């Protein structure tokens, strides 16, 4: 008798089993369709984490691979979504009852004799729109150009907007110092000028520009006001711009037509009604339908859908890196399977079923990729926050759908790319797997 005290291994049926004799059938019985004991998912995950911790570097690298992919998805969707919201916000800030009158008609011309001749959009048209259409609350003409503005020894080439006093309301501009262009007859081409904040800083430094005389090309203007900082908005950087009366602008740039008329309807007016009224009025005045009226909604919707597509495209590009990460996981798992042949053989010898081995390796792959997904979410979220820290005006925020989708995607990547290695493991012949050490 040895000194190891083996009394706890009774094998006669009548002796009291201590080591779990009670949990199995006293006699081996064959159960049809038996596929291995039910192992709780928690146990599987614990086993998988144990195995993954055994190879920290490899685990870390494949987690990093997925994390980069997910972080890219998160960051790029946040940027795309931010861009979309930014544009929508910009337009909404203008008021939603805005119409834009553009000279020219967007359709094929030339069927009629002399077809295609486009009448100018004139200051008189502008005046007619403001006075003769009851739905119109106010409107502002735009006559644009680019010219060099000079003060002292300094010169700067800037975009020039010719307009009227109404623009300050229509575009919700804020005056930083002095006042805006004087109200009055739009045909009165005065010599007042309002500077963007950047132009003012560049030309005058710390000095107050109010009342100073600057030159715009060969023309002399008196500065009456400076805009408050505003930044880029709808194609115009209002900080780096000068504004002068519309009539003067047309004269300087030798234009006979306005660039645009911005029309703001009374609150609650139907945009389509206003649009039709403007079209009818100008058709009557021009004896032809030769202008286009764009509603704010149309612009917003177009940009919205363009930027939506852009976001999806960015997401798709980012997803490529996820696929690469998935292939990485497959690689790592294949290496793990060949490296752990003994373990697989052993598990089979110990009675792990094919399904269980499959589950072990699938779980490992899923844990790897889900871990990568969580890390990627954190990294991507931090990157978005850092970006917003640098550009506070840009509303970059990861949409909820992107967070959920990237987590689900990372899990799917793990399972999808884990199938091949796991099947290889499950099919391993235990005798061969156990050979050697």
């Amino acid at each position: 008798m040895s000194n190891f005290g083996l009394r706890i291994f009774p094998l006669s049926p009548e002796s009291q089993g201590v080591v779990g004799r009670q949990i199995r059938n006293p006699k081996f019985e064959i159960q049809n369709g038996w596929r291995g004991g039910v192992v709780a998912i928690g146990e599987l995950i614990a086993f998988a984490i144990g195995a993954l911790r055994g190879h920290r570097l490899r685990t870390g690298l494949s987690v990093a691979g997925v994390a980069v992919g997910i972080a890219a998805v998160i960051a790029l969707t946040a940027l795309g979504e931010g861009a979309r919201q930014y544009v929508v916000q910009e337009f909404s800030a203008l008021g939603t009852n805005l119409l834009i009158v553009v000279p020219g008609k967007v359709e094929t011309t030339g069927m009629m004799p002399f077809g295609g001749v486009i009448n100018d959009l004139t200051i008189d048209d502008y005046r007619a729109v403001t006075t003769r259409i009851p739905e119109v609350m106010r409107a502002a003409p735009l006559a644009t150009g680019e010219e060099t503005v000079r003060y002292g020894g300094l010169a700067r080439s800037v975009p020039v907007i010719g307009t009227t006093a109404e623009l300050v309301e229509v575009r919700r501009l804020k005056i930083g110092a002095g006042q805006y262009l004087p109200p009055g007859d739009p045909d009165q081409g005065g010599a007042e000028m309002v500077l963007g904040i950047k132009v003012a800083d560049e030309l005058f430094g710390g000095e107050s520009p109010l009342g100073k005389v600057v030159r715009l090309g060969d023309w002399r203007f008196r500065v009456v006001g400076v805009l408050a900082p505003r930044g880029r908005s709808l194609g115009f950087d209002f900080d780096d711009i000068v504004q002068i009366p519309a009539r003067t602008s047309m004269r300087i740039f030798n234009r006979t037509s306005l660039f645009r008329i911005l029309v703001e309807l009374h609150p609650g007016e139907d945009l389509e009604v206003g649009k039709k009224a403007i079209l009818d009025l100008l058709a009557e005045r021009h004896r032809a339908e030769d202008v286009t009226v764009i509603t704010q909604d149309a612009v917003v919707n177009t940009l919205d859908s363009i930027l939506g597509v852009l976001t999806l495209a960015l997401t798709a590009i980012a997803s490529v890196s996820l696929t690469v990460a998935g292939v990485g996981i497959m690689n790592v798992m294949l290496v793990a399977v060949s490296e752990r042949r003994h373990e697989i053989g052993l598990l089979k010898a110990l009675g792990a079923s094919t399904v269980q081995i499959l589950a072990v390796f699938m779980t490992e792959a899923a844990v790897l990729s889900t871990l990568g997904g969580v890390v990627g979410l954190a990294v991507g979220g931090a990157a978005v926050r850092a970006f917003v820290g640098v550009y506070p005006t840009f509303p970059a925020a990861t949409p909820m759908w992107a967070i959920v989708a990237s987590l689900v995607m990372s899990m799917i990547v793990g399972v999808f790319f884990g199938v091949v290695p796991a099947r290889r493991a499950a099919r391993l012949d235990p005798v061969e797997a156990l050979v050697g050490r």
Partner: protein
Amino acid sequence: MIVLRDLWRTYRVGDSDVHALRDVTLEIERGDYLAVMGPSGSGKSTLLNILGCLDRPTSGSYAFDGHDVGSLSDGERTRLRQSEIGFVFQFFHLLPRLNAQGNVELPMLFAGVSRAERRQRAARALEAVGLSDRVHHRPDQLSGGQRQRVAIARAVVMEPRLLLADEPTGNLDRAAAVEVMELLGSMNAEGQTVVLVTHDPEVGSRATSAVRMDDGAIVERR
């Protein structure tokens, strides 16, 4: 308990057939302690793999407790391995990342035994092989003899009817080998059926019966 009849195991290597087992007929009774001896390549490991349901014979029959193993499905053979057969290997095959307790718990994990019960039974099995003070040691913190004792605890924790040991002392020094053989002997004394594969006559002499194999056939019985 075990009846092998006219067992052949043939591998196809290139154009020729290699017979790992030739017409092996063998009966093992409950409580037997059988040593399978012979030089390497004599087919004793193949015999052990077939006994352990890791391999299937090419022809012949294998009955385990009256069940014809050849007609069992893969799942049923897996269940047989899980609950009725314990394995001890020459190279221990402990998982290096798990401690002694975790290794002993492994077969129970895949049998779906609850965590609390696994812990309890693993502790008892380790106590039985004299390693109560090494429960939380990982394999690399254990000596060869201790590792093999952990492996034996793992092999018997499911209370198998049949304990298979493939050169269990082949990778141990003399003192550790004696320990392990005494352990197996005492288990057999308590009624455990043991089949041991070895090429070491001294190890084989500890078994109560022995067969000698050569070139796939049993050439001598004791």
